[in-house]
C-alpha cells in the first residue's frame, strides 16, 4: 500500500476529486496549507504598498491506495491539477506499512 500526497492549487481540487471518484478511488483527506517552492511566493500590491508574500495557499491531498492503483492515481492527480503555470505543486508517493479501519478492525487492503 502507498500514500499518495499531492500539494495542488486550491481551485483545482474539485476536478481532481471528481476524476479520482471516476477511477474508483473512494476516499481522500484534504487540508488547507500554505507554502512555497522554486517560485518563492509572489509580490502583491495592496493599499499602495508592494509586499512579497512567501506562503501561497495550497491544498494538501492525501490518498491511501493499493500498490496496483498507484500509477493511475498519480497520473490522474497530476493531470487534473495541472494548469501549466508556476505554482502547480507536487505529488509524491510514500510506502505504508499497515492500514486499519477503525470501526471494524479490518487491516491491509480490506481497510482501504
Amino acid at each position, binding site marked *: 500500500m502507498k500514500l499518495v500526497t499531492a500539494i495542488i492549487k486550491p481551485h483545482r481540487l474539485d476536478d481532481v476529486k471528481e476524476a479520482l471518484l471516476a477511477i474508483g478511488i473512494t476516499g481522500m483527506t484534504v487540508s488547507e496549507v500554505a507554502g512555497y517552492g522554486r517560485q518563492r511566493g509572489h509580490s502583491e500590491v495592496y*493599499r*499602495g*504598498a508592494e509586499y512579497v508574500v512567501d506562503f501561497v495557499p495550497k491544498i494538501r491531498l492525501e490518498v491511501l491506495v493499493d500498490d496496483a492503483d498507484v500509477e493511475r492515481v498519480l497520473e490522474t492527480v497530476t493531470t487534473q491539477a495541472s494548469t501549466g503555470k508556476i505554482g502547480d505543486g507536487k505529488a509524491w508517493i510514500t510506502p505504508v506499512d499497515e492500514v486499519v479501519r477503525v470501526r471494524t478492525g479490518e487491516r491491509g487492503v480490506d481497510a482501504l
Partner: protein
Amino acid sequence: MTNVIDTGDTAWVLMSAALVLLMTVPGLALFYGGMTRTKNTLNMMMMSFSALAVVAVLWVLFGYSMSFGNSIGGAGLLGNPLEFLGLRGLMSQSAVSGTVPSLAFVVFQAAFAVIAPALISGAVADRMKFSAWLVFMVAWVVLVYFPVAHWVFAFSSSDGSVVGGWIANQLKAIDFAGGTAIHINAGAAGLALALVLGRRQGFGKVPMRPNNLVSVMTGSALLFFGWFGFNAGSALGANWIASTAFVNTLGAAAAAVIGWLIVERVRDGHATTLGAASGLVAGLVGITPAAHSVSPIGALAIGVLAGAICALAVPLKFRFGYDDSLDVVGVHLVGGLVGTLLIGLLAAPSSPAGVAGLFYGGGLGQLGRQAVGSFAVLVYSFVVALVIALAIKATMGLRVSDDIERAGLDIAIHAEQAYDLTAATSGTTLPHGSNLPSAGIISKEHKA
C-alpha cells in the same frame, strides 16, 4: 435666556445625538476592529469602547463646561470649567440653547467628544499598552479636545454676555461640524502618537491585511448612517440648514467612494472593498466642515477630491516611515484639511453660511481664515499630543513588550480572542494561546 424650545428641533437634536453615538460604537469599533490583524481585533474595539466610557464621564463632570462655559477672561481659548461643573444649572427647564433644551445640546456635543479620541486609536493599532491608552486619552481630551471644541464650536451670544471660542467668533473660519475640531485634531494627535510609539514589527515588510472586511464595510456603513446626525444634526434644528447639510453629506460621501476607487484601480490594479469603505469615510470627513457652506455640486467636488487625495496620501506612511496603522493621518488629517481649505474656494453665497469663496468672487480672505484655523488646530494638537506621549513613555511606558506584540494584544491584555475557531474545527478546546509568551511575562506587563 428668552429663547423658546421648539419640539421639532429638540427631537432632531436628540435623534442626531444617538446617531453620532452609533458612529463610535459599534461603527468605528467594527471599522477599526476589522481592519487590524486577528490577534489585535478586540484591543482595537476596546479603544473605541473605552473612549465612550471615559470621555462621556469626563464630559458630564467638567468637559462640557471647559468647552461651552463662558470663555475665561473673554480670551476665546477655554471655557470656565466651574460654570457648569457636573452640568449644574442645566437641568432647569429654563436652560435653553438656541431652540432646544441645553441638555439636548450637551448630549449632542458629548457624542462628538467621544468619537474624537476614538479616531486616534487607529494610528496606534497592534502595539500600545491599554493602560497607556487610557491615560493618553484622558490627558488629550482635557488638554486638547475640550479647549479646541471651545475654539471652534462655542459661539458668543448676540448680546455679548457669553463669550465663545476664537476660531468661531474672532477668526470666523467656517467649520460646520468639526473638520478642524474633530478630524484635523484627531489626525494630528494620531501622527504624534504614532511617531513616539514607533513602528510595528514588520511594518512595510510583511503585509498586514484587514482580518475581516465584512466588519470594515459594516463599520463604514454605520459611520455613514450616523454621520447624517453628525452633519445635519449640527444645524441644531430641523430646518433647511439641516436639509442642506444632509444632501451635501450624501453627495460628498458617494463621490469620494468613486474618487478613491479610481485611484486604487489605476495605481494598484484593483478596486478594493477596503478602498470603498475608506473612500466613504474620507468623503464624510471632507464635507464635515463644509456641509452648510457649499452647494450640492460643490459637495460633489469636495467628495471626489477628498477621496482621491486621501487615497494618494495613505501610502505616504511607507515613504516617510511613520506607522499610522489604520490611516488616521491619511484619512482624517488629510481629509479634514481638504474639506476645511476647499471652503475657501467653494463657499457659496446662496448656502446657509452665506459666505462667498474664491470661486464665487469672494477673494482669498475666507481661504486665509480657513488656513489659519486648520493650522492652529493641527499644530496645537500635534505638539501637546507629542508632549503627553513622551511623558507617558518616560514614566509608565507606551508600548507592550515585543513578545506580546508578536503574540497579539487580545490574549495578553484582555484574556480573550475575537474568533475562537480552534474549538469549532477540532471538537476540543485547546488551551488558549499555546503560542504565547509565558503567563509571567503577560502578568508583569499587564500590571504596568
